[in-house]
Each structure stands twice: as C-alpha cells, then as structure tokens.
C-alpha cells in the first residue's frame, strides 16, 4: 500500500515537472540560492536580495559590473564644506512603478526612513550613520549633511539601504505590505512573490534608462547546487547565479551542450582566522608557522581549479586599500617547523578548525589544510557548523576552535568595510583581539578624505595585520555563473548584482 502511494506521488511529481517549462517569449529564468524573505531595502544585508532588487530599485548612484561609480537617479553631485555636505542634482521625469513621481521629497523620505525608527529595526542603518540630515533645496536638488566625512558613502548610495523608495505608496499601503510588494524606479517591476519558491518581475517600459529587452524575469530559489545545475541542464533555468555552483561542478556544466560557465573575480575572500587568545595560536610564531605550512597555490590550482587568486591580506585585489607590492608568504614547511620548534610546539600538537558545514568546496580546502598541518606535526580536526550557528553564535561569542573560516563579501570594495569589523576592539567579528595601535590606525583612516593618503593608511593596516599574523589569508574566489547559450548580452557581475536591462534571450 505504501509503495503504491509512493509510486503515485512520484508520478504526480513527474507530471507537474513536465507541465512547467513552457517559456513565454522573452522570459528569463534565474536560479538564486537564497530567498531573502523580505524585499524592503532597509531590512536586508543579503547579496541574494541585491541580485533581485538591483532590477527593482535605483540608487542615487549606480555601480555596474565594471565597478565604476556612475550617475543613477542623481545626474551629478558636488562635495562641499570639506566633504561635510554633498549636493545631488536629481534626474527629472522619473516615475516609480506605481506612477508616483520621483523627486527630492522621495530622497528625503527614503533617508529619514532609513535613519529613523523603521531603519533602526533593520541591519542597514549602521552603514549610513554619517548622514545627519537630508535637506530639500528644490524639487530636483538635495543636500546631504554629514556629521563626519565618509569616503565610502557614494559607493554605499549605489546599493542596499540607500535604494530610493516611494513615499506615497508606503504611506498608503503600510510598511508590512511593502516588505512583500516592493515598488521602485528600476527597469523591472514586481509581479508576484511565493516565499521560498520564486519572485516574478516584468519589464517597466517607462524606465529612465530605456525599456528592458526582456518581457519577464523569474527568480527561482534553489538552494541545492545539484538541483540548480540539473535544472540548468534541462533548460528550465537560464542562469544560475553565485554563490551556488561549487568548483567541483564546473566540469559537469562544461561537458553539457548548450550551457557554459562564466567566471569573474568577486569581492568574496576566504580566510582562516586565528583565536589569538587561547590555544597554541595565541603565540604569534605558531600563527606564522601555520601560514608557512599551507601551500595555498597548490590548493587553488587543484581543489579550486584555478578559479581563485591568492591574497596577501584579507581583501580582494579589487578592493580600495589593496597593496600590490605586498608579498605572498611562500609555502615553506621547513621554516614552519623551525618556528614551531622556537615556540616550543612539538609534534602531536592539536588544533580545531571551525567551518561552515554546507560549503562543500571549503570543506575540501579545510581538509587539505589539515593535511598540510599534519606534515609539520600539527593534528588538526575539523568542526562543521550550520552556517547561521557559526556566524551568529560561535564566532561573535568567541567559542571557536583555534582557527575558523571567515568568508567576507565586502561589496563596497573598500578595505575599511572589512578591516574595521575584523580587527577593531569590541567589534562583533573580533571576539579575541584587542590592539590599541591597530585601533588607532583604523579610526585614523576614517576621517581622511584625501584618497591617496587614506589608501596608504589602509595598506599600512594590511601590512600590520600580516606582521601580527592575525589570519591565514587564503584566496579571493571567482564568482561562478552557469549560463544557458540562449542568453544574450550577459555580463557577469562580480558582486552578483545582475542588472538585466540589456540582457535578452534567443530561442
């Protein structure tokens, strides 16, 4: 009886799957690994929110796949009063999807909402606290008054919490309605949303940058990489966006006709950070020995199939603050053993590496690291955690092993965004270390508006952390997209924020 039921369910499932894939002309289907669950810009910090929402909303500035900052809803801006005031000239004749006009009032509303009570409940507010007031000069001119200069502010206005939202629409329908029925000025407007299943968008013909080529876009939320790739192979999905496809599946996609892999260097960097407070890694020499003991180049060439770049500090080479002259610590097991002997660590010392259990590629990397450490006499065990447990409990509460995985996105491509949160005393991501000298450097660079001077300071911070061996900087991974051949004009975005205005689909 039970078997009969099973067979029936299987048949039912099979039949629904068969019915689904009928492509309307000009419909693009994208597989995204995560449903953010809330489409309000001030309620999220997830990159997979942005990969959808960058098509619904616009910011005052815009940053595309080339990472250049260009005008968005603002056509131009001037820095006044030594960087304490920024005057934006707004684009005219722009409308929201509901027909409401975009003007200075919408900008003021957006930022008052972000910096007020509504914003305080979400994770975005802290990125924009430098803004003290938004003053409306006339319908198409606004002044941003800053409590202190923020060198990264213009970049931050191109994404996330700074997306311009419609004041009348929110006043009419309420905050809760807006969470699941987003309205912006972007090239696509919201159609429908089924939690954990899909979100549908359609072209917004009145977009200020011209109507999109596509008619419809469907984002399906598929967490399991093999399912996403199978759907891509079957033609039911056109693009699989990162972070879905593990390096190990690249050959699977390449071997299949009609689909291909597109990779591009991303802002995501991986490091194994140290517990600098207890265990054998409290000793700087031991930390240095561990860095010497790991052959990062070999790991990148084999396990990562070359889809990564070694890094010298915890930032991507694309980031502002990266020092191309810093040298990579070479693989040198003899030196590692000498350092360990100097620190009085004999063969058989143990340490634990905490990793995200669902990151299959990094699990392989961690096991390779464990093998390299065994060569110099350190016995490393691996403790996998559920990702949310690791980043919300284990790391902030300082309950990690001697080493732990830290993956970092840093979408602003500014080292300040990483370094301050990783190294400043008392920060959530820094449960172990407190270094007054490093704190002073981190605070110092924040008030400097001169780009060259600030870049030099950020590079000094990077060198300082390398001198103290605060982490094993591993690599900067490529963003891996799986793309069907029917997709045209596709340009892979390093930060997964894929704007689809010019993309089209063939037959």
């Amino acid at each position, binding site marked *: 009886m039970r078997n009969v039921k099973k067979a029936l369910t299987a048949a039912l499932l099979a039949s629904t799957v068969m019915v689904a894939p009928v492509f309307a002309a000009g419909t693009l289907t994208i597989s995204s690994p995560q449903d953010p669950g809330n489409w309000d810009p001030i309620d999220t910090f997830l990159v997979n929110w942005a990969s959808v929402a960058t098509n619904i909303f616009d910011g005052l500035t815009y940053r595309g796949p080339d990472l250049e900052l260009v005008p968005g809803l603002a056509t131009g801006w001037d820095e006044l009063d030594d960087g304490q005031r920024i005057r934006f000239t707004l684009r005219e004749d722009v409308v929201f999807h509901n027909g409401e006009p975009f003007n200075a009032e919408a900008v003021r509303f957006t930022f008052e909402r972000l910096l007020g009570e509504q914003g305080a409940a979400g994770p975005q507010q802290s990125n924009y606290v430098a803004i003290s007031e938004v003053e409306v000069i006339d319908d198409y001119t606004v002044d941003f008054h800053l409590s202190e200069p923020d060198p990264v502010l213009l970049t931050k206005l191109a994404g996330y919490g700074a997306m311009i939202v419609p004041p009348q629409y929110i006043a009419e329908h309420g905050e809760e309605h807006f969470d699941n029925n987003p309205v912006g000025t972007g090239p696509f407007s919201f159609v429908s949303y089924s939690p954990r299943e899909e979100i549908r968008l359609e072209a917004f013909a009145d977009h200020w940058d011209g109507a999109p080529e596509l008619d419809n876009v469907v984002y399906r939320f598929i967490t399991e990489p093999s399912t996403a790739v199978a759907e891509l192979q079957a033609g039911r999905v056109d693009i699989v966006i990162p972070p879905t496809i593990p390096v190990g599946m690249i050959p699977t996609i390449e071997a299949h006709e009609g689909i291909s892999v597109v990779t591009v260097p991303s802002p995501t960097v991986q490091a194994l950070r140290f517990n600098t407070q207890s265990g054998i890694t409290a000793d700087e020499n031991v930390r240095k020995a561990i860095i010497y003991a790991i052959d990062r180049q070999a790991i990148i060439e084999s396990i990562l199939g070359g889809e990564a770049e070694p890094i010298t500090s915890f930032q991507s080479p694309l980031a502002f603050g990266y020092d191309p002259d810093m040298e990579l610590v070479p693989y040198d097991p003899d030196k590692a053993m000498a350092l360990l002997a100097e620190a009085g660590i004999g063969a058989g010392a143990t340490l634990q590496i905490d990793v995200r259990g*669902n990151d299959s590629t990094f699990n392989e990397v961690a096991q390779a690291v464990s093998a390299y450490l065994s060569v110099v006499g350190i016995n490393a065990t691996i403790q996998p955690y559920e990702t949310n447990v690791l980043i919300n409990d284990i790391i902030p509460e300082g309950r990690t092993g001697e080493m732990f995985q830290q993956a970092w996105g840093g979408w602003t491509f500014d080292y300040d965004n990483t370094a301050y949160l990783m190294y400043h005393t008392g920060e959530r991501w820094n449960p172990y270390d407190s270094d007054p000298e490093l704190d002073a450097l981190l605070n110092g660079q924040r008030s400097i508006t001169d780009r060259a001077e600030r870049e030099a300071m950020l590079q000094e911070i990077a060198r300082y952390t390398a001198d103290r061996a605060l982490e094993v900087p591993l690599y900067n991974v490529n963003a891996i997209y799986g793309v069907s051949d029917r997709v045209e004009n596709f340009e892979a975005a390093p930060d997964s924020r894929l704007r689809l205005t010019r993309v089209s689909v063939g037959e």
Partner: protein
Amino acid sequence: MANSSASSNAPAKKLNLSRFKNLEFVLGILLAGGIGLAVALSWLLFPDGGRAVNLMARLTPPFADPAHLLGTDPLGRDILARVIIGGRISLTVGIVSTAGAVIIGVIMGLIAGYYRGIWDMVVMRFADIQLALPFILLAITFIAIIGGGLVNTIILLIVSQWVQYARLVRGSVLALREREFVQSARAIGVKDINIILRHLLPNLLGPVIVLMTINVANNILLESSLTFLGLGVDPTIPSWGGMLAEGRTYLQTAWWISVFPGVAILLTVLGLNLLGDWLRDTLDPTGRTRI
C-alpha cells in the same frame, strides 16, 4: 531428481528450502564477515588512516593506477583505503548503538512485563510517545541541542531504538510468566531477580538476537544518512555516509567517489540481513518475531 512418487515430493521441497537457507548463511557470513575482517585489519593495511593527501593525483579514476585501485577523491586520497577505514565508524556506530539499545530495551521490557501495574504503564506509554516521534525530527532536535559527533550519534540511535526491544521483550514476558515452569518457581519462593535471569531471559534471547542483526544493519544506514545530512561525525574521519555526501558534487564527473562507499553500505547491510534471516529461521522457527 530420481524421485518419481508423489509421497517423496514433500521431503524434497524441504531439502531445497534448507539448501537455500544454507546459501543465505554462507553469503551472509561471507559478506558481513569479509567486510568486518577487512575493517578489523584496516589498522594494519592502512597505517596512515587514509589521510594521505596528494593533490597532484586528485580524481584519479578507478582501475587506472594500481596504487589507487578504486581511484582517488578530490584531495587525492585513496578511495579503497577510505572505504575500508570508513567501515570503522559505520560498524562501531551500528554495533555499539544496537548493544546499548538492547541493554536498555531488554531491562525495560522485563520490568514492564514481569511487574505489570504502574511500571508497565509508565514504560509502555513512554515507548508509545517515543514511537510517535518521526526519527528525523528527533535527530535534528537532538543534534541541534547537544551537538553532532560520534558519541552523540550513538546516544541518539540508542534513544530512538530501545523501544522496539522493550516491546518485543514485554510481549514475550507476558506469555512466559503464565507458563508452568515460571509459576512453579514462584510457588516455591524463588526470588524475582532469579526468575527473571534464569527462567525468563534465556527464553527471550532468540528473538532479541534476530532483531539485533537487523537493527545493526538499520543503524548503519541511519548513521550514513545522518552524516550525509551533515549531522553526524567529524569530516576528517572517513565514514561511508560522509563519503557519499562529499561525492555528491562530483556525481556526474567522478562517480567513483560516492559509488564505492555506497556499495560498501549495500553489501554490509545485505550480509547482515541475510544472517538475520537465517538466524530467525534457526532460533525462532515459529516466527514469533515480527519486525
């Protein structure tokens, strides 16, 4: 073959059946015993514990390199060594958790069945509650609260499995305690503990042993699924479920990573089930054990 009369048909049938039973026994011993032996010898065969990483030799296909007969995984580790060593975890979990469940379940069943009354109520209602909980829900809750790892996995399996033994034993005790030999022992004033140990326990062991063999096989499968879901043991220690999970990414390009541990699970479970079947027919010919 020479039988022609109708009357000799029955014994011939019996003979065929027992031959099949013998085959069951031989196959069961060969499979379970062979794998058990290989795992027991793994300390001698692979002193490095299957940890030797060779990134240059990663993803070698099987039968291509005599040094890696069954190929290598994404870190260049030998699959053959890891499959055999992986058996340590699977067999340890299977055997230890079954033993634990048997000890607790038999004691609980004896108490409930022999003393009846409030003991019976408490133990059996507890067992009913336990049986109403789906295993995966229990597993996820349990591991979320006390964490993963080898010992915790074993504890989880004991907690979820003792009930079947308690029920089996209680049922048998209810029948046995009314039998003459037990009644007469009570009449002449033998202590309860002696009745339980000398008269009841030996008469229960047959069905319990049968259930055990099948339970070991079942627990090996459960451990593999738990590790596959990332709820089980440390990934540096090879285990069959863990290897299956690791190989999932490579299923279309390097099938051997997950197929061989899968085959190992299949053969072990098959061997144990054959042995269990044979034991049931030998120890419990009336088929009282219902599984």
